[in-house]
């Protein structure tokens, strides 16, 4: 292999990216060395098993990925603004919509939500960490390494270009001979390990680590949504693991699962992909629902309306989400009975979602609403999500779907549910729980600027796409002709996209601005919160709770405040905490090496990497470190400084 096959060459945009990546790396290394921060980085962050720090790293990585995916989106909008534009060629455009979709779903939406779950869930249930802190670190680092493996594709070897769904035969070896598709397969595979472990971890954490007295039906609703999400993760991700492995075998070892020759069935890929893919949609929306519920209840200053209905509707969604996958490929022609069945299940799953919308509205009804930034995102979510949901039911009708399928109508639909559902929730949750992560609030004024600009931009960008779809514009085309008459709506969409970009930049500036100028928290309860995370001190000590809280009902902290138990003093007891470990990050690095070797079919490298992974597992198995105890004196010291 020559060097110009190894590195991507010939495109000024890529050279620009090369230079900026190199400069950033050099800058980071310089800063760390100059300020002598390497040891700090290793002991405080790379080896940490603290759920709050892992959560922060998840969120930071997700914001980085949001930037990358957002740049991809703006490049696409730039190309589509006017007919016959020559900004991107077709290959480059295909690569960009592929990486945009994959990154936004797998490396942005999921880690953002999982990051917030990491920060919040143990605090909300009154626990000192998750059930398996070590595995939690493995989860983060495998996600991170998987994401990095996927992302380096655009400078080394070339990006995948078969769409985030990677349908065969397009994604097969004959039509996608470059290594790009291998990056997709292995990046997702490695990140998927982490996601599966997260699912198991949070399931056990929520089932077993709740503070004494907290019954299942008294858990905060975000905890409930995370529990259901974890269940879906545990049972959906193995399906993706298999699907990716089978395509990897097809491409690297000559098997015939999805090939056109020797009995393979290309359509089986679509089937397996969406058996995972539809539950995945609920994996990224249920935690969002949970966050909105918490925020709406807090700022309407009322208990959540219809708590039980909320819980049961999520349980129903967990079951039904595995029975609707065919609606992603009605036009494949699976037959009338199949299409009708999946059409009906799809419409059924809209019912529990509708129930939740009414619950939020009734929670707001007669509430004394505080319009904080987090609340604004939650309020904007409701109408925007309804638009996305209703158009989803339109798509659910198999016969009508033959018209909408593969048009911008679909693009508009899923951006309406994913952005106004998941992305709004990420922003709302970030503002809401930011004090728990960084001990200061995000600036509200800048937050509201972000909100108004982003929401206006979002609607301007995606609402016209419904009409573009109805006017026949197919998705995934890199250009169109002037005679098609799609230009004016595309111009609007691009303007909306630019506004969203500006909104994002203000958010990033807000993070910097608030870090510099926001007053530090003193109480740990900035919003007059209802659930236990607000009972922790500011900043949250690494052991979370000096006393394990006692729970006497739903909205546990609210009750404690009402009964005057919020600031009770009791004698401390030593606290058991897990030790840090360097194994997760090293193990994940070996995963990365192994994956990189597989991408280029350098089998010596992939085998060496796998041996490294196994070796780190053996080391872990023989490690009988049982953590350490925080002494009473140390707790007292902490509790004095934090109050």
């Amino acid at each position, binding site marked *: 292999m020559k060097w110009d096959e190894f590195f991507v060459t010939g495109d000024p945009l890529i050279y620009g990216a090369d230079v900026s990546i190199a400069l950033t790396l050099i800058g980071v290394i310089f800063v760390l060395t100059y300020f002598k921060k390497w040891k700090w980085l290793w002991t405080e962050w790379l080896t940490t098993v603290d759920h709050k720090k892992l959560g922060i790293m998840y969120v930071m990585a997700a914001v980085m990925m949001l930037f990358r995916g957002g740049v991809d989106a703006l490049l696409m909008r730039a190309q589509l603004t006017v007919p016959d534009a020559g900004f991107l060629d077709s290959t480059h455009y295909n690569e960009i919509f592929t990486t945009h979709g994959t990154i936004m779903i797998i490396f942005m939406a999921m880690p953002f939500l999982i990051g917030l779950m990491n920060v919040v869930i143990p605090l909300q249930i009154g626990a000192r960490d998750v059930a398996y802190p070590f595995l939690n670190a493995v989860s983060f680092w495998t996600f991170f390494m998987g994401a990095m493996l996927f992302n380096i594709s655009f400078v080394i070897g070339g990006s995948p270009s078969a769409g985030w769904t990677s349908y065969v035969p397009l994604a097969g070896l004959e039509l996608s001979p470059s290594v790009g598709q291998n990056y997709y397969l292995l990046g997702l595979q490695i990140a998927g390990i982490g996601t599966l472990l997260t699912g198991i971890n949070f399931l056990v954490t929520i*089932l*077993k680590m709740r503070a004494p007295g907290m019954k299942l039906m008294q858990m905060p609703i975000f905890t409930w949504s995370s529990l259901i999400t974890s*269940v879906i993760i545990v*049972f959906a991700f193995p*399906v993706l693991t298999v699907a990716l492995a089978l395509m990897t075998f097809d491409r690297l070892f000559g098997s015939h699962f999805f090939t056109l020759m020797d009995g393979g*069935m290309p*359509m*089986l890929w679509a*089937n*397996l992909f969406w*058996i995972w893919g539809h539950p995945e949609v609920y994996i990224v929306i249920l935690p969002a629902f949970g966050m909105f519920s918490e925020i709406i209840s807090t700022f309407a200053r009322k208990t959540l309306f219809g708590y039980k209905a909320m819980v049961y509707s999520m349980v129903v969604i967990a*079951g039904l989400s*595995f*029975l609707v*996958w*065919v609606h992603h490929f009605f036009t494949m*022609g*699976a*037959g*009338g*009975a*199949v299409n009708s069945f999946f059409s009906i299940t799809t419409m059924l799953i809209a019912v529990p979602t509708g129930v939740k919308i009414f619950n939020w509205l009734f929670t707001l009804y007669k509430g004394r609403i505080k319009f904080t930034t987090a609340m604004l995102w939650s309020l904007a979510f409701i109408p925007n999500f309804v638009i996305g949901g209703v158009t989803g039911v339109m798509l659910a009708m198999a016969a009508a779907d033959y018209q909408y399928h593969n048009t911008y109508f679909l693009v508009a639909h899923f951006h309406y549910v994913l952005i106004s559902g998941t992305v709004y929730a990420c922003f709302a949750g970030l503002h809401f729980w930011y004090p728990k992560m960084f001990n200061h609030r995000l600036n509200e004024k800048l937050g509201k600027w972000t909100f108004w600009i982003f929401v206006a931009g979002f609607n301007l960008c995606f609402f016209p796409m419904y009409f573009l779809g109805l006017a026949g514009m197919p998705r995934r085309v890199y250009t169109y002709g002037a005679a098609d008459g799609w230009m004016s709506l595309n111009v609007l969409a691009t303007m909306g996209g630019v506004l969203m970009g500006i909104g994002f930049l203000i958010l990033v500036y807000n993070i910097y601005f608030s870090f510099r100028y926001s007053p530090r928290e003193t109480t740990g309860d900035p919003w007059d919160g209802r659930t236990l995370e607000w009972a922790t001190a500011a900043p949250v000590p690494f052991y979370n709770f000096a006393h394990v809280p006692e729970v006497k009902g739903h909205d546990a902290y609210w009750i404690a405040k009402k009964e005057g138990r919020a600031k009770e003093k009791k004698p401390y007891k030593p606290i058991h905490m897990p030790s840090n470990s360097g194994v997760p990050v090293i193990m994940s690095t070996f995963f990365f090496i192994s994956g990189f070797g597989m991408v280029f079919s350098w089998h010596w490298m992939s085998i060496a990497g796998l041996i490294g992974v196994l070796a780190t597992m053996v080391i872990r198995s023989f490690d009988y470190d049982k953590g350490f105890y925080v002494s009473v004196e140390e707790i007292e010291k902490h509790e004095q400084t934090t109050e």
Partner: protein
Amino acid sequence: MANNEQTHSHFPWSHVIGFALSIILTLFALWVGFESGLSNTMIVVVVVGLALIQATIQLVMFMHMTESEDSKYQTGTILYALFIAIAVVVGTIWVMSFGMSHM
């Protein structure tokens, strides 16, 4: 703990019975397949049924699924997994048959 007497008895009866049942069920499935003369559909139904019974024996008698304070969660997990397994296997076969009869 539900299984104290079982744990502390001297002879592992439940294991021996489970093992004997597994062997008998395996041989019976073989007989159903080759000698029973049932229709193909019936053979599929019966041997898959036998496999499920054998799996249950493993889960309950060997793996002690129903012991410990978490037996509800353990059993629930396996039952939900069974639902997923049926949805994935039956669903996939049905969807990928494209209206034609399979097998």
